[in-house]
């Protein structure tokens, strides 16, 4: 777990020393494609988080959306 955090934060730390970002703005077209959007349909995502929260013990870090109850 700690290793994963370090690996993820490493580019941030390194970028602090860099003058320019390693992925230029004009190179981000693919990242801007709709299929890459993690939260393409907010109402649907919120509902699915609600479905999980209601039936599972876990909660939190759902990635943007939450909300709701647990149901019998």
């Amino acid at each position: 777990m700690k290793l994963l955090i370090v690996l993820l934060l490493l580019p941030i730390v390194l970028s602090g020393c860099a003058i320019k970002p390693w992925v230029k703005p004009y190179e981000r077209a693919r990242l801007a494609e709709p299929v890459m959007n993690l939260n393409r349909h907010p109402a649907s995502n919120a509902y699915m988080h609600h479905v999980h929260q209601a039936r599972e013990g876990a909660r939190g870090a759902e990635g943007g959306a939450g909300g709701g109850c647990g149901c019998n």
Partner: protein
Amino acid sequence: MQLRVVCALGGCLFSVAATAAVLPEDRADVLYHRYEGGGMTIDGPSVLVRKSIGGRVSVSANQYVDSVSAASVDVLASASPYTEERTEKSLGVDYLVGKAIYSLSYTGSEENDYEASTVSFGASQDFFGDLTTLSFGYARGDDTVRRRGDALFEEQAERQHFRFGVTQVITRNMIMALGHEFVSDEGFLNNPYRSVRYRTAVGYASQPEVYPNTRSSEATALRAGYYLPWRAAVHAEYRWFSDSWGISSRDWRIAYVFPFRTHWEFELNYRDYEQSGADFYSDLFPYQDAQTFLARDKEMSDFTSTSYGMAASWEFLKGRFRLIDRVGLRIAVDRYAFDYQNFRDITVKGLPVGAEPLYAFKATVSQVLLSVWY
């Protein structure tokens, strides 16, 4: 009573930017959702409207309804089937300043025996050439718990959420996000209707559940999206969870998203969830008041849940009208299988106490989403 208002965080109003600081799109969504399985049918609409004002402010409003018809194994074991309705309303505003977005929202939820209100605040900021987005959030919820048929019963619970997240552009094809959330609860946290069972000389008897008055939990999630050369994407996520009640879980999900021709998009996904239960959970306690805290809530037992699903989206009427950019229709179906390792189906009669079959059920989640972008 819809149990355990777990995380009324303002729903989708609490979202943080996944990439560069850009306000969410102007759109209106009408969602019909339906959950069916394990004796439960829950359906209803969700309407979400979002509109920007002057390019720096975006406001949103959401109304979500759950119409519940409950005849689950828990209900059948100790009560009669019932119906009820929960309505949740949210208002939110996002404010863009430079490369930062500040978000504020309020959510209120009402049902006949439970009220919840939540205020949340969030902020996100782009750094390092917009390759990195840092975000944090705080939410506070106050709940009032009542019990049908008992006018004197009223309890309170309060909840605080602390969130931190970082989203990082890794390469021109890959983006990753790490999120962490700490949740703290205090007050009446159990369900006033549920009971545990304990062994007696002639079988078993029941007594009310007793939960601790505090709970704290931590969840960490790692997500990644990778763009494939044929204009498709793979999304994967892994989440770890643990809490002070002894519940720990991990879940992972993978999804494959691909367009078809100009106006269609399809998604296939698989999710796996595995949980070890609370320290004070037992399907059958040896005797009455066997310990300080008692639970027989299947959501707190050891179990696994797997699901697979698919979705199809179609966008049309693009550029046809002056005030509407396009219209989208999305249909999604997910099929779940829950398998409990230490929760038994006591509606099965004629077997020795404690020898009933382990409970399992399947559920189907369906959604129809109509979206208008403007």
